[in-house]
């Protein structure tokens, strides 16, 4: 028989107002995957849960199985990423990572690897010398890799030629000049090498990579197009604020 009470360590990905004083919280947990839970009275100023169920929080949660949604009965914060509250420049980046993770995970499947990636991404965003652009590209590529959609970045996806100069989001990899598809985006070998490195190297090493402005543009175009096509993410709302 299913237990009425359960516990999980989770990250708050999103919150919405529910009724008068409740919040509907989207949690990404290590044990139970992604699900929504109700934080009763969390909008009230004296609520014990209010701070713990706000965005960018990672904590131990206890739940009671409710009729529609689990009800959060307790919360202990493990780490609160308050840097996103304090720095308006950082906020869009944190939201972007949360939205990507939220959109990618569809249901209650265990996703500890994505949880850990998001926690590390948020931690690095809060550090001083982080290159936020490269960190976000690395995060996107790693997220795709974990989901089983790693782009083919070694040779032409079609013929195997190593002289590939473009990237086809539909084909999911590099294309040479002979095989080039209609949707191909220019991607020079240096940018492809950087993308390969960003997938393999730890997230913390993404800031060590050096790229020219044109290569940065290429990389941003390629990752955005690849994610949109293969992961069926649709419109990523936080991208607009990130662009501003």
């Amino acid at each position, binding site marked *: 028989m299913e237990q009425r009470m359960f516990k999980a360590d989770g990250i708050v990905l*999103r919150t919405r107002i529910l*009724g*008068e004083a409740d919040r509907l919280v989207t949690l990404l947990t290590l044990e139970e995957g992604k699900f929504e839970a109700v934080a009763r009275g969390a909008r009230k*100023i*004296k609520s*014990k849960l*209010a*701070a*713990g169920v*706000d*965005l*960018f929080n990672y904590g131990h949660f206890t739940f009671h199985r409710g009729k529609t949604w689990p009800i959060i009965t307790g919360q202990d*914060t493990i780490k*609160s990423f*308050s840097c*996103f*509250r*304090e*720095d*308006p420049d950082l*906020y*869009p980046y944190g*939201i*972007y990572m949360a*939205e990507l993770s939220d959109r990618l995970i569809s249901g209650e499947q265990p996703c500890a690897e994505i949880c850990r990636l998001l926690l590390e991404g948020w931690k690095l965003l809060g550090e001083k010398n982080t290159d936020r652009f490269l960190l976000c590209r690395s995060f996107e590529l790693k997220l795709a890799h974990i989901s089983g959609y790693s782009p083919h970045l070694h040779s032409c996806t079609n013929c195997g030629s190593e002289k590939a100069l473009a990237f086809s989001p539909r084909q999911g990899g590099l294309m040479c000049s002979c095989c080039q598809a209609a949707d191909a985006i220019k991607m020079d070998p240096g940018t492809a090498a950087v993308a390969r490195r960003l997938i393999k190297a730890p997230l913390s090493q993404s800031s060590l990579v050096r790229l020219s402005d044109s290569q940065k543009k290429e990389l941003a175009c390629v990752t955005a197009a690849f994610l949109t096509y293969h992961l069926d993410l649709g419109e990523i*709302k*936080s991208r*607009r*604020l*990130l662009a*501003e």
Partner: protein
Amino acid sequence: MVYPGHLKKLVEALTRFPGIGQKSAQRIAFYLLGCSREDVVAIARAMVDAKDKLGFCQTCGSLAETDLCIYCSDSKRDNNLLCVVQEPRDVLVLERTGQYSGLYHVLHGALSPLDGIGPEELKLDRLVSRIRESEIREVIIATNPNVEGDATAGYLARLLNPLSVRVTRIAFGLPVGGDIEYADDLTLSRALDGRRVI
């Protein structure tokens, strides 16, 4: 449950109010049926009038019956102080304290990219031009103390600081009447940061 047609319609209409379920709706419906016709008409008229006659102030965005709200048209209010809030109901809450006598500006939301609310939706350019064209010396940011509210406050501070006005944020801390024992870590650390000499 089987209701007579009009009672069913009334109960269904009342369940559309926030926090009103089937049982409460039924209770209110029976209360209304017990009232005199004049009372019921007065209640219905008050609702329709409020909907028809209330709009938003052209200057500050709070609730108003004419182009200007009662705060913007009151010459006794302090023109040097401006309090920025998220929703029109926040104005009423602040007024209830009786501690504030300045002007207001209502954003009608907070920065929330996931809900499609960016700086453009908050019409921040209107706030900037209002400050430029007036005698405002201090802007108090009283957005909600959550992530969206804090991010909006940070964004506003960066936007308004070059205008040579003093930008302040309402204080954070423990609610009056609560026990420290039950306070969460973030609230407590913010209360410590915001401590003051007594």
